[in-house]
């Protein structure tokens, strides 16, 4: 222990006070950092701040105007995502271990932060009174401070001692992650934060006993967490199965599509149609595709393949103009597209089996999306969009990246293509999208886009915004990826050529993986930018996370009066954004490390 102390003293001297300028710099920095936190804490604790305006509006923040009777859809989406997450963490279970000391040092850090707060928080803070004058008040009295100081100091000491006992029990890192996630769930049941209740004359009362704020959500969260744990264990049972991992990866890609379809629409489950129409169509078309894949190498089939393809295309062409179920039309179209690529990809029996699986999954997804999307029973809300608050921000970020990333890959490849026409189109799209500010594109989506769409086709505002967002960030992704492509040495292309790889294999197995690896930091910062820029949609009347805090809550007087309390909400929003972007960038640093970028 004594040694430790000496070592840290030496470290201090070497790194912070090595010379006079460096000492000055250290002192000045500490002064400003302390000043910043004192200001922040003072601001947060002043009596004119109403933090209930944040707490009480959580639902508004998350889903805004989404109809309450349909919340189950939101919960299912969140639940499914977390169940998938649990399963994936199990499947890709880390083999690394942490010791008990590491765990305690995490707790030590949290309690140190708490101690820091109790020590640094200012006793006095300034408040604006009713006449708009700034007054000073005692917002953090000394005895309160002492009351907090003693327990937090004890915590710090306890964890410090525990940490330095060097307890060497090892825990798997993935298991630990589940344990950390359990903490907020348990807190939901223990910590009680007051909710606002109104008495008969619309005066606020704080109910007694305190009603926990999370009362409405703690049951669903707990159930979801239980499922998360369950699937984590299932996942870790199967962690050696390559097929499970592959299935999981595909499920992640498909998940947003499904969520999008059932959050947007209220699919009418009409059993007779499904049994009598959808399922036969699905089975029929699936069988045709599967049989073609299976017998593609049969000489007879090979001989008549082009004729068959021709007839198939003709039938599909005709089917577009006669009145048959839309599912049949689109399934036929998918069948044609698939049949064209079959000869190119399936020659080994393993390749065939995989292709049949891909075929089945795509057809099934198509069927579900069409059944969900074609019913008119859309969820009705009073607003421009059923998405609002965090759900809108999240939608723009996730779905925007989800569509724009593949688009960016395609545009980047297109811009490097040998075919002049492809190159021209891709360059055109990239330059056009990038040269106009995002806000202009948003106005384009809200006001002008309808002019460019064929008559009768009309998308919701959110969908239009998603479309321009996809292109806008797609163009940026494309330029980043192109940079990555240029960093691949010519020798890599030649080596791939020399072992006889096709251009498609060369791109997908050799060039793209290396290009993407080289630009992970840029990709992450693009994703972060997209996440934050989503708040610009407020300009065209969509209500995102930021708008709720700044505009909606700050002017809300019914049922509870929160007029003028936008500053605490802004602080909360900043914190919220920070948590997400910070986690993202930390994660990406880990991924970078795992890929060994730094070593090469």
């Amino acid at each position: 222990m004594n040694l430790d102390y000496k070592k840290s003293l030496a470290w201090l001297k070497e790194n912070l006070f090595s010379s006079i300028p460096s000492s000055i710099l250290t002192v000045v920095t500490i002064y400003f950092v302390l000043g910043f936190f004192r200001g922040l804490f003072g601001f947060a604790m002043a009596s004119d701040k109403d933090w209930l305006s944040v707490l009480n509006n959580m639902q508004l923040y998350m889903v805004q105007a989404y109809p309450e009777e349909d919340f189950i859809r939101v919960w299912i989406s969140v639940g499914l995502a977390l169940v998938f997450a649990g399963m994936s963490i199990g499947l890709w279970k880390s083999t690394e271990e942490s010791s008990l000391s590491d765990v305690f040092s995490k707790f030590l850090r949290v309690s140190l932060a708490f101690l820091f707060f109790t020590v640094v928080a200012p006793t006095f803070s300034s408040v604006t009174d009713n006449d708009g004058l700034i007054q000073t008040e005692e917002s953090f009295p000394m005895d309160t401070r002492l009351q907090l100081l003693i327990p937090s100091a004890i915590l710090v000491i306890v964890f410090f001692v525990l940490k330095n006992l060097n307890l060497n029990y090892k825990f798997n890192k993935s298991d630990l992650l589940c344990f950390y996630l359990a903490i907020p769930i348990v807190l939901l049941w223990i910590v009680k934060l007051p909710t606002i209740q109104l008495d008969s004359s619309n005066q606020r009362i704080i109910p007694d006993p305190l009603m926990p704020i999370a009362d409405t959500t703690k049951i669903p969260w707990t159930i979801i967490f239980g499922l998360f744990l369950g699937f984590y264990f299932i996942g870790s049972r199967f962690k050696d199965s390559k097929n499970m991992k592959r299935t999981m990866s595909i499920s992640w890609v498909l998940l947003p599509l499904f969520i999008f379809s059932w959050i947007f629409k209220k699919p009418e489950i009409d059993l007779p149609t499904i049994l009598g129409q959808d399922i036969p169509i699905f089975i029929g078309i699936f069988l045709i595709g599967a049989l073609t894949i299976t017998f593609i190498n049969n000489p007879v089939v090979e001989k008549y393949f082009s004729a068959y393809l021709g007839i198939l295309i003709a039938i599909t062409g005709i089917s577009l103009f006669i009145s048959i179920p839309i599912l049949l039309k689109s399934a036929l179209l998918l069948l044609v597209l698939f049949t064209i690529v079959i000869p190119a990809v399936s020659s080994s029996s393993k390749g065939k089996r995989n292709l049949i699986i891909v075929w089945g999954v795509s057809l099934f997804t198509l069927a579900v999306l069409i059944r969900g999307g074609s019913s008119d029973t859309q969820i009705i809300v009073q607003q421009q969009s059923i998405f609002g608050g965090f759900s809108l921000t999240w939608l723009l970020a996730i779905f925007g990246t989800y569509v724009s990333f593949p688009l960016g890959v395609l545009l980047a490849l297109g811009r490097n293509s040998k075919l002049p026409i492809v190159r021209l189109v891709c360059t055109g799209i990239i330059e056009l999208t990038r040269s106009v500010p995002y806000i202009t594109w948003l106005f384009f989506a809200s006001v002008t886009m309808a002019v460019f769409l064929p008559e009768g086709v009309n998308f919701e505002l959110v969908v239009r915004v998603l479309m321009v967002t996809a292109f806008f960030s797609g163009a940026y992704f494309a330029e980043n990826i192109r940079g990555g492509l240029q960093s691949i040495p010519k020798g890599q292309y030649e080596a791939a050529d020399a072992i006889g790889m096709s251009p498609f294999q060369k791109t997908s197995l050799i060039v793209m993986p290396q290009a993407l690896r080289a630009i992970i930091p840029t990709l992450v910062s693009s994703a972060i930018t997209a996440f934050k820029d989503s708040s610009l949609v407020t300009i065209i009347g969509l209500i995102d996370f930021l708008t709720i805090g700044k505009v909606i809550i700050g002017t809300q007087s019914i049922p509870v009066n929160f007029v003028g309390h936008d500053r605490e909400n802004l602080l909360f929003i900043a914190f919220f954004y920070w948590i997400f972007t910070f986690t993202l960038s930390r994660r990406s640093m880990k991924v970078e490390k795992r890929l060994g970028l730094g070593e090469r």
Partner: protein
Amino acid sequence: MSIIKTNDVKKWFGDFQALKGISMEVQEGEVLVICGPSGSGKSTFIRCINRLEQHQEGEIIVDGIELTNDLKNIEAIRSEVGMVFQSFNLFPHLTVMQNITLAPIWVRKKSRSESEEKAMELLNRVGIPEQASKFPGQLSGGQQQRVAIARALAMEPKIMLFDEPTSALDPEMIKEVLDAMKELALSGMTMIVVTHEMGFAKEVADRVMLFDEGLMVEENTPTEFFDNPQNDRTKLFLSQIL
């Protein structure tokens, strides 16, 4: 029977003519060493044989297939012809094992287990079975080049091309690569080797050629080539290098 036959092959880079009419034949199982001063067109020539470069005049016939713009022919020839580069060109994002099994799995459509078995066999053959799960960046130059040889052999080629396989290596690593190549030559592989390792040429080659300014100026058996050179260019070249 000749497995490679070229007839008056000419190649221009813009205005500069790198190959000025090369005609030659290689028999099955033969080891041919090409040497010559820098910029004489050695690399260009052997890269034409698997169409990493495109010749503009003349014809190249590999294993009975003429090299034209027909993609099918090019792919067929590339899977018959393995190539080892001066700068290794291993795929840095894949392990040694993945580097070797990539082409058998994706191009030859073999099963993973079969390809891995074969890869281990090849790694044994080039003497580095213990490196299978490492990444190229973790290997020495000599080890990397031997992985590159194993990668090319995994396609079971009939012909192997080597473009200065040892000139990017430290002297102490050159031997291990040359040993692997000797072993390969003894096993009856048809090889074209561009190299300045004259020891290797004397010991292993069936024939030696000298390129100069886009022309083949001398072609002979190793003993004749080194002991009794005919052409003045050869004499000059040998005096500079030996």
